[in-house]
């Protein structure tokens, strides 16, 4: 008993480094050489491979390059069927929206903190605040006078019709009663193509600003941005955020985070983001607490990789 205890205590004890023979070691010289090596390598890699810098998409460039996609997005904002309109917290209070980790809904618990009303913020207000041709002014007045049900009926019907039209082209939409929606969408397209919408969604009466939440939400509601991302292998099913445009290593260290999105059940889960974050939070905590986790902290002893590191020591000891 005593012997067993004694062995256990002796096995756990780690002697002080000072008790071992030493050899000369110049830490400052080692650091200086390391600094030169890393600086030269960084400078060389930068010279050889540069860095990616793909031009950002603006509302103007999107609406000019893909006007039909822009129009369909504007109509979806009016119909309340866009991603932003259906998002839930922190942007709006769509019933049932918000991811959960099991029974815990942190997204809804956080509440609406950055209020966004896509129809008003992305379409109606920019039109109202711009000098518009008479048909758009009339359309705005017709929209304002209509009941919510009537607005919904017009915009949903026009969204469906655009979906069925060849290339989603507004000029080829089957004739029907879409109320003021076509004029509103056309007015917003003109505004966007002129570059005005980029500024309007950003400034909101201020000169200085840095918050791109609204223009980014509108951009992300269209398919132009995601089509470009797909072409650049950047979507979630393509190992997403850890990549970057071009053939660059990107954030390779996010491999474990991105990995979960590639497998079931997360691949098809509507709560994937929250679930993956929960897993990564637990794993991150486990990494920090490795010295205290039975089993995990013994892996080095079992794998014996350490014998390679200290092979001189073990050889000498033998």
């Amino acid at each position: 008993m005593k012997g067993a205890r004694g062995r256990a205590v002796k096995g756990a004890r780690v002697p002080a480094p000072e008790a071992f023979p030493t050899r000369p070691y110049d830490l400052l010289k080692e650091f200086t050489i390391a600094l030169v090596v890393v600086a030269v390598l960084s400078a060389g890699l930068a010279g050889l491979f540069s860095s990616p810098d793909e031009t950002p998409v603006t509302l103007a460039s999107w609406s000019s390059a893909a006007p039909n996609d822009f129009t369909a997005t504007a109509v979806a904002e009016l119909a309340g069927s866009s991603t932003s309109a259906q998002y839930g917290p922190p942007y709006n209070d769509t019933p049932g929206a918000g991811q959960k980790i099991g029974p815990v809904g942190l997204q809804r618990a956080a509440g609406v903190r950055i209020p966004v009303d896509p129809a008003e913020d992305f379409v109606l207000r920019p039109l109202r605040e711009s000098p518009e041709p008479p048909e758009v002014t009339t359309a705005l007045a017709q929209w304002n006078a209509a009941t919510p049900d009537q607005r919904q009926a017009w915009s949903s019907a026009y969204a469906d019709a655009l979906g069925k039209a060849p290339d989603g082209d507004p000029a080829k939409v089957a004739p029907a009663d879409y109320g003021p929606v076509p004029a509103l969408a056309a007015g917003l397209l003109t505004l966007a193509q002129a570059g005005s919408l980029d500024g309007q969604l950003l400034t909101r009466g201020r000169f200085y600003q840095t918050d791109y939440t609204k223009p980014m939400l509108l951009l992300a509601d269209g398919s132009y941005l995601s089509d470009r991302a797909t072409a650049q292998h950047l979507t979630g099913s393509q190992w997403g955020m850890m990549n970057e445009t071009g053939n660059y290593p990107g954030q390779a260290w996010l491999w474990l985070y991105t990995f979960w999105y590639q497998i079931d059940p997360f691949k098809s889960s509507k709560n994937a983001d929250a679930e993956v974050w929960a897993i990564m939070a637990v794993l991150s905590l486990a990494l920090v607490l490795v010295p205290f986790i039975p089993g995990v902290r013994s892996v080095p002893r079992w794998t014996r990789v350490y014998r390679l590191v200290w092979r001189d020591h073990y050889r000498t000891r033998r």
Partner: protein
Amino acid sequence: MTSSWTGALRRYALRKLPPEKLLPESQPAYMASWIYVFGVLTVAALVVVLVSGGVLALFGPAWWHVSSVGKYVNSVHLWSVELFMAVMVIHLWGKFFMAAWRGRRALTWMTGAVTFLASIGTAFTGYVVQQNFDSQWISGQAKDALNAVGVGAWFNVLDFGQMLMWHIVLLPLVIGLLTVWHVLLVRMRGIVPPIGATAPGDER
């Protein structure tokens, strides 16, 4: 002996980390492997990251899009980050397989692991403040994940100004302080002896 706070702090610091322990001219003979180089390489890469990032900060976030010199400095920043993360991961795995937390060194491991996680956050905020298509796409995707766990309104990746502050002020400060703490802990505790090693003269 005075009773001032300053004097007490000096005596505490000298007791915990006397100059010969802080800047020793010798190391235990068992410290003889290339794996030991990756710790100092990580600190060296951090210095290159900070200096190249400092030059970018000097001229502002839009500079590197319109200047060939700026583009080169941005490239140095990018590649030094790639090297920093690579050597840090090798350092981390090396320390794992050496069970380097033994002998009252758990805090050294923990500060290192938190620095690794903070570095991931810092690199991420760097990607979202590039002001290019990558920033747009990465922030657009990341907002969903952050909103899903209820923090997106307070850590708003679509707010360029907020992300820039995190990237160039808050997180570098965290990494800097953690790195100093980590290195001081290494110097205080010394290099962990090999697994199963007994002090010479203590063998049976």
